[in-house]
């Protein structure tokens, strides 16, 4: 299996796993138990990880809150921040291509009297900073715009967006879940007040994520109880996963400069190769502002799930739409959600189901790309032959 769905989660680094194991077997204490070694060891390892994660994004350790997933970080950022700003204004700005964990949270706030502006994106998936500037008004309390879109790979003008928020005095949250480990993150350059990252997206384990909260920004916790995470998040901490996330952050920081160019080379090869195969293949997202190693497209006449399944049968793990949108477990066809991202970037609705994403990690090689390019023609040909649409051409 050649894994090309790294935007849905990466294979953890073996060094990370090796570092985690002793926190299952030896240092299994509860980190709130400060008065005996196996508790204290767990605590200190967690605090060391906090420093590593902070260093990774240019923050300080006490600006880092550990959570259990990118979704939880986004929920904490938005809901936790609004608990403290209810009387400052009720207008929130996001983009129309946010991840469900931002879009759903914000959309539900309409019930609480909030007004929501969802900024349009252009064909490349980019929010125009001028649009943000125009959209901000006196009542605006929060802007939340993702750094990288997982589905089409677009990297926003986040620095520019941050500068506008800062100038206007509006709190700025960045969902950087699909950016971390692939695009450099510096909370001071981005001028953001909050930022979400998730360990499993940069070679760390599942079960650990973080929310950066700039000093001075008030956020209330969503989970009440004990004194963990300085009150931002009660509950026994997932020490092994946090330790793993810490090392993954350190490794990403140290090694990104080395592996990102390789990802870019694979990306270019795949892009050029696919572009030359069929004239009815259309790339999605931006040509240059892309997550390194991310290529996404749709093919006329072919439905995405079928292509995904054929590629899987041939040994390639890819994505159709975001990992979340393939709600195959739904109880009802009405729960099958067409990707709002593709609609937003202008892909014709009736073939929205047809998108495919391939995202590489530092474990992929140029040979993997050769293999994809080898199987694509026959696979697409087979599905075209079967397709009512191709026929009608």
């Amino acid at each position, binding site marked *: 299996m050649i894994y090309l769905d790294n935007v849905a989660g990466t294979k953890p680094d073996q060094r990370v796993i090796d570092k985690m194991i002793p926190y299952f077997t030896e240092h299994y204490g509860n980190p709130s138990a400060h008065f005996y070694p196996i508790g204290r060891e767990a605590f200190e390892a967690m605090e060391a990880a906090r420093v590593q994660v902070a260093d990774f994004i240019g923050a300080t350790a006490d600006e880092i809150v550990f959570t259990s997933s990118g979704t939880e970080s986004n929920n904490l950022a938005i809901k936790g921040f609004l608990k403290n700003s209810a009387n400052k204004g009720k207008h929130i700005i996001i983009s129309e291509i946010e991840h469900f964990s931002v879009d759903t949270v914000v959309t539900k706030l309409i019930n609480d009297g909030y007004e929501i502006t969802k900024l349009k994106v252009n064909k490349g998936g980019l929010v125009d900073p001028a649009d943000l500037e125009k959209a901000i008004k006196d009542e605006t309390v929060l802007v939340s715009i993702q750094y990288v879109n997982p589905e089409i790979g677009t990297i926003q003008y986040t620095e520019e967006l941050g500068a506008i928020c800062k100038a206007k005095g509006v709190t700025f949250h960045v969902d950087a879940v699909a950016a971390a480990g692939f695009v450099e993150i510096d909370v001071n350059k981005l001028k953001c007040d909050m930022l979400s990252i998730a360990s499993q997206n940069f070679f760390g384990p599942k079960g650990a994520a973080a929310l950066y909260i700039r000093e001075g920004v008030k956020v209330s916790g969503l989970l009440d109880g004990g004194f963990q995470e300085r009150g931002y998040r009660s509950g026994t901490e997932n020490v092994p996963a946090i330790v793993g996330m810490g090392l993954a952050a350190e490794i990403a920081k140290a090694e990104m400069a080395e592996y990102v160019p390789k990802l870019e080379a694979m990306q270019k090869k795949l892009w050029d190769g696919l572009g030359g195969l069929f004239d009815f293949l259309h790339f999605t997202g931006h040509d240059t502002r892309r997550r390194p190693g991310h290529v996404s497209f749709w093919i006329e006449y072919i*439905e995405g799930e079928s292509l995904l399944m054929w590629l899987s049968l041939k040994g390639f793990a890819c994505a159709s739409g975001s990992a979340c949108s393939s709600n195959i477990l739904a109880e009802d066809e009405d729960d099958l959600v067409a990707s709002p991202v593709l609609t937003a970037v202008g892909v014709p609705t009736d073939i929205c189901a047809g998108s495919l994403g391939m995202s590489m990690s530092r474990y992929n090689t140029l040979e993997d790309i050769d293999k994809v390019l080898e199987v694509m023609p026959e696979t697409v040909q087979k599905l075209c032959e079967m397709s009512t649409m191709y026929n009608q051409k």
Partner: protein
Amino acid sequence: MAKGPYSETVMDHFMNPRNMGEIEDANGVGEVGNPACGDVMKIFLKIDDNNIVEDVKFKTFGCGAAIASSSMATELMIGKSVEELLQLTNDAIVDALGGLPPAKIHCSVMAEEAIEDALRNFYKSKGKDDSIVDEMKAKITKEN
């Protein structure tokens, strides 16, 4: 290896679709589409003088369940009489496929609808009114 969301039979029909293609001299062609899901299914029928399905082929733009449903439908259709075709429900297709995920049941419904559409066009192509199909369906319902 993990099974995936589809049964073995679905996967078999997806990978090796039966009766895929078109019939040049079809005397009944049905087409249904579900724009929301982006599926379009087409069934080509060749019905002989005894009202028996002599040949059937399909083309589908759609997901794995849509392809497998059409393929399985054609298998169940060959050799059947027109009356029997109208008794071929989506449930029978789902059963024959060893089940479908709930969210994908509509793919089998599309196949059922495509068969009916093809039959209507079969009668139309013979210059008849396709209300005959409604009569036959009413009769079947009464008998059951």
